[in-house]
């Protein structure tokens, strides 16, 4: 029972982080129908930039994180403006290839500056063990869950009450109708990419705080595909639920199955295949009727 609780807490932490990265993926997809294969690399870039700012430049950690977030906004806007906007109207497969190219580019950028070996991250979250109902968990992991919950609450408020948030949902619903009321679709795309970059960078920092900085962080980006397929590509609640389910499954597999089977790594992709077979639009996704 204690082990189960322990695994559940670990799973929730991983799930929360997965949800955060998945949110950006879903936002970009909802706004512009683009599948962003560079989402995991945003995490890596964010983690390394923050590492650079805190360790190499010597900034206090709040300043380092703030600058990393500002960098994320600029990165999102720039990528949308320079790389994605010229691709508007191109076949979806070309756009996907472009984001895969972007992914390599970002990795190359990180390797060029920081090399390919991992480094210890200046942990700013306390990692003292905390007792929760008899199970122990690092405080940093608990804080991670809390942070993600707060971020999701903020985004919910943004999409419900903020004019730009409502405009983003309107654009996701009917782009031309949104244009007809003076909503700038370009601006909506830019905001979507910025939010996606910021959430990924924050997720990258949280992960780095727990496991250190390395290129391997982007592997989480791969796990995000099963998450969003499970939750539904166009569903924000789906991103949360999908993230938590996959996170928990990974933790239970790691705890209850022999490690040589590597089931905790494989399980997301088994789920991916199953869901594609039985419910291709995911748990919360909308079945789209293609109009010609």
């Amino acid at each position, binding site marked *: 029972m204690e082990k189960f609780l322990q695994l559940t807490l670990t799973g929730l932490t991983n799930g929360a982080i997965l949800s955060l990265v998945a949110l950006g993926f879903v936002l970009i997809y909802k706004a512009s129908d683009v599948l962003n294969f560079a989402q995991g690399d945003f995490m890596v870039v964010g983690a390394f930039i923050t590492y650079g700012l805190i360790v190499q430049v010597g900034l206090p950690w709040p300043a380092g994180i703030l600058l990393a977030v500002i960098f994320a906004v600029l990165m999102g806007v720039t990528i949308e403006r320079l790389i994605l906007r010229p691709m508007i109207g191109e076949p979806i497969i070309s756009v996907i290839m472009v984001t895969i190219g972007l992914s390599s580019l970002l990795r190359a950028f990180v390797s060029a500056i920081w090399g390919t070996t991992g480094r210890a991250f200046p942990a700013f979250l306390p990692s003292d063990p905390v007792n929760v109902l008899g199970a122990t968990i690092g405080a940093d992991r608990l804080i991670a869950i809390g942070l993600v919950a707060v971020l999701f609450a903020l985004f919910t408020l943004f999409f419900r009450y903020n*004019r730009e948030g409502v405009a983003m949902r*309107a654009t996701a619903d009917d782009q*031309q*109708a949104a244009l007809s*009321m*003076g909503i700038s679709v370009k601006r909506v795309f830019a905001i979507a990419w910025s939010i996606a970059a910021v959430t990924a960078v924050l997720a990258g920092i949280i992960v780095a705080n727990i496991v250190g900085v390395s290129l391997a962080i982007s592997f989480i980006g791969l796990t995000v595909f099963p998450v969003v397929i499970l939750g539904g590509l166009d569903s924000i609640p789906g991103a949360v639920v999908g993230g938590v389910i996959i996170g928990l499954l990974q933790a239970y597999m790691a705890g209850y199955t022999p490690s040589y089977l590597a089931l905790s790594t494989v399980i997301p992709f088994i789920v991916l295949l199953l869901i594609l077979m039985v419910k291709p639009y995911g748990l919360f996704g909308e079945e789209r009727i293609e109009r010609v």
Partner: protein
Amino acid sequence: MLSLNNIEVIYNDVILVLKGMSMAVPQGKIVALLGSNGAGKSTTLKAISGLLKPEDGEVTDGSIVFEDTEIQDLDAADIVRRGIFQVMEGRRVFEHLSTEENLIAGGYTRKDRQAAKRDMQQVYEYFPRLADRRHQTAGYLSGGEQQMLAIGRALMARPQLIMLDEPSLGLAPLLVREIFGIIQRINEEQGTTILLVEQNARLALDVADYAYIMENGRIVLDGTPQTLKDNADVREFYLGLNEVGARKSYRDVKHYKRRKRWLS
């Protein structure tokens, strides 16, 4: 207030749809633009509102002048800010947004939040049914309510000119009467100029101050509703009335039947 001078519109660089289209919409009036399916009515509205670009259409010749400014090269957001709002064909409400959120989206370009709030109350006064359903998801509204919401969204932008693309499409006659009544009220009470595109000629001629008839990408006839109602061709082709006692050959009848599809 608005004039189209010999405009030409081409889709995908090759399909010529408007061929020297000219018309004028005077301040404070209701102007109807009539014509059969495919005549180019929606294209005309999109040319004015800047919505051609996303469909790969382009105004290649002529000018569109709104309040002394040429607007044919401006983008859609700019045109909304200048005071022209197009209510697109087929209502196009944001299905996953609530009624109220749809209205908020309609007021996207507004700077003054307080005034926008008052306008929302005004919309609910015109359309009490929307007030009852303000928190309901727009996708679940009835067709008539969605059309009301589409018009309400336009009011939220406080435009000088509202362009309505076939607001009667697919609605029951009684509902259409109600909606047209409110369009008239908006015109009278707010002084909003209306450009009304309709296939339902009879209805449109009842509310309009002036009407244009378009065919095949250009205006073929224009006049006051009364002169148009008296015109023999209009009576036959657009109102479905025959000259009393006139004998029709079979070919004419067939012709008439084919045309009848777009009559009410």
